[in-house]
């Protein structure tokens, strides 16, 4: 300490302190500042938010309010997250065509980059679930049987045994899950769109979501087999009863009429 103390009056001391201070500041900055790439993303992100805001003002603001605060025609979007936007707009549900009990799936209006921009803007309004990545929703290697059990426990009440859909109160409904994109199934579970409850990772971990997606893919997609023949909508006894009456008994009555019409005629003689 004596040495340092002796030299503190040295003419170059101020320069050394200055250099040390600069080095410390620079080092700290280098250590704590976002990486260069992230910085570039930030720019892209803010660009996306800007573009998203423009799209939002045109397509969404009339119902959800100019700042996403919500109006009497549409809920607030603060905190719904990018995943909700990606689901609602990516399945064509939003923008809604007309008010009603429930907004149905329809043709997708926006391109995926536009959807991403909208999602970025809405995500910027408040923290919420982000769009899942492929590794999150990809069902390869998931447990189909476990997924079936989870589905029957958590989803079948509204969506039917194999996700054919079902009715809810006052014209609302649980849609059919046939051939729904795994990403959208994941997002729906994550965000709970419209009348659906949400299943965040705290109640249903990522692995379980993947199991459910794998189950749905196995039983209700264009690749799922129906060993018994025509599925008749997968709706159970009502469609079976209808089929049995029309094509079972109907065919038998037609046959009976045919047999009765081709009979040995009783001749008077």
């Amino acid at each position: 300490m004596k040495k340092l103390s002796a030299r503190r009056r040295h003419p170059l001391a101020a320069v050394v302190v200055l250099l040390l201070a600069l080095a410390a500041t620079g080092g700290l900055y280098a250590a704590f500042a976002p990486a260069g790439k992230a910085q570039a993303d930030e720019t892209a992100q803010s660009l996306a938010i800007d573009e998203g805001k423009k799209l939002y003002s045109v397509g969404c603001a009339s119902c959800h309010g100019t700042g996403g605060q919500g109006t009497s025609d549409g809920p607030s979007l603060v905190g719904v997250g990018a995943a909700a936007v990606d689901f609602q707009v990516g399945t064509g549900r939003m923008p809604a065509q007309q008010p009603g009990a429930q907004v149905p799936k329809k043709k997708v209006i926006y391109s995926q980059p536009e959807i991403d921009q909208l999602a970025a803007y809405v995500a910027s309004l408040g923290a919420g679930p982000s769009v899942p990545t492929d590794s999150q929703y990809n069902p390869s290697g998931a447990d189909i049987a476990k997924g079936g059990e989870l589905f029957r426990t958590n989803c079948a009440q509204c969506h039917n045994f194999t996700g054919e859909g079902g009715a809810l109160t006052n014209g609302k409904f649980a849609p059919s899950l046939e051939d729904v994109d795994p990403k959208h199934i994941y997002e729906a579970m994550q965000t709970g769109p419209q009348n659906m409850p949400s299943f965040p990772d705290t109640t249903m971990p990522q692995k379980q979501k993947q199991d459910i997606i794998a189950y749905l893919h196995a039983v209700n997609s264009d690749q799922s087999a129906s060993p018994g023949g025509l599925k008749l909508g997968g709706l159970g006894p009502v469609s079976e009863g209808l089929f049995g009456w029309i094509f079972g008994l109907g065919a038998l009555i037609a046959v009976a009429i045919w047999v009765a019409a081709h009979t040995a005629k009783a001749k008077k003689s």
Partner: protein
Amino acid sequence: MSTTTDARREAPAGERIADWADGRLGIYSLAKANMRKIFPDHWSFMLGEICMYSFIIIILTGVYLTLFFHPSMNEVVYDGSYVPLQGMHMSEAFNSTMHISFDVRGGLLIRQIHHWAALIFLAGMFVHMMRVFFTGAFRKPREVNWLFGFLLFVLGMFTGFTGYSLPDDLLSGTGVRFMEGAILSVPIVGTYLSFFLFGGEFPGGDFVARFYSVHILLLPGIMLGLMVAHLILVFYHKHTQFAGPGRTNKNVVGMPLLPVYMAKAGGFFFLVFGVIAVVAAIASINPIWAIGPYRPDQVSTGAQPDWYMGFSEGLIRVMPGWEINLWGHTLVLGVFIPLVIFPLVLATIAVYPFIESWITGDKREHHIADRPRNAPTRTAFGVAWITWYLVLLIGGGNDLWATHFHLSINVITWFVRIAFFVAPVLAFIATKRICLGLQRRDAEKVLHGRESGIIKRLPHGEFIEIHEPLDAGARYKLTAHEQYKPAEIGPEVDENGVARKVSPLQKLRAKLSKGYYGEGNQIPKPTAEEYQEITSGHGHH
């Protein structure tokens, strides 16, 4: 024995066998009495055959299924060939049904034939019953056979229900839970009954084995006996026939059992089997692999019973959830009232023949089948009942009506609640009007002939349409029915001013009789005099 052996050629083998059997069973007299038995020919008389054959098919396929089905609720882990269920815990009943469906040769086809045949059996019985109803074929002497048929239908419902419950899948388990709830709603004894039936708390480990005995032994045994009794009575009463020239209440015009009907019926059996097999090969039924094993904590939307129990589902779905809480006990009217109405719906149609015979007071035998239009009130009653039944079926499938027609399930439920009371009345009125209109048309056709569509211009310029007279046979058919006179109670006070005692029941009967046969409730059929007058050339345009 003066005949020499070489002069007597040995009888053909068939004759010798018949001789042998006759010596021991007396089949000659039996065959003589019945082989030439005459049956009338009409396609609607084959509906009962459809039922009988599908019942036989159900028994045959059912026997095959029992070879592989394990009626046990022991928990096992699935390791069969259906991947999406591998590793799942399930009852042995479900496991063995999965085994039948995926790993037994022909198992799935047989299972589907069994189940489709059951749906068609019940549907066939329904239509057969309605045929008998609308043609008045339940009248004396066939009232008992009507009841046998009705019992077969009701037993068929419960045999179907117990069979549907056996695989212990999530759908049927929900159905059994439904039934348990209905039993629990019975005041005082409900809980005891439920515990007795399930051997304790639902679902327990017993019900599959119990339902199994009921499904494969008890109910089908009773049904088989009833079916034989039903057929014996058909033989004994002889079959009804539609009116026509040469057909009277005292004869049967048709063809003999042997050879014509034996061949036709035998062939028809194979046609029925073929159609049901084709349906079973084309369309999936009760895909338990997609439904999954039963767990009391799981339930799916769209959980309905098979169609024949659908009206009970409708009753429970549309009933408001009323309940009364008194002294620590709950009376669940929302479930108990449907449970009471359930047998009433069925009984309504079952007792009708007795009500009609009481109103008409007719004690004669009837072997000529009515045309529905000629019994407008009965036909209207039948259509009203079917309407009632269909309204309840709509209620039972209210969720599917909602999703497929984009309606609100609440609106459908309210529709069914109102239609339950209103629709049968509307159907009754409309049907009666239609029947009377058809009667008028028949009368018109008898008197004036068939409209030929040929327009003729008369010399003075008038256009007329030529009516072609019907032949005598057709006129006979249209006028063969008899028309009752409404029952009168007569003057209540005699000429001396002494009042006669008339019971309210008699008054009711007279009133109902007037509703059946009074003025405006049937169109008087044309008389021979009317016909003579018109065809004699006077007054005919």
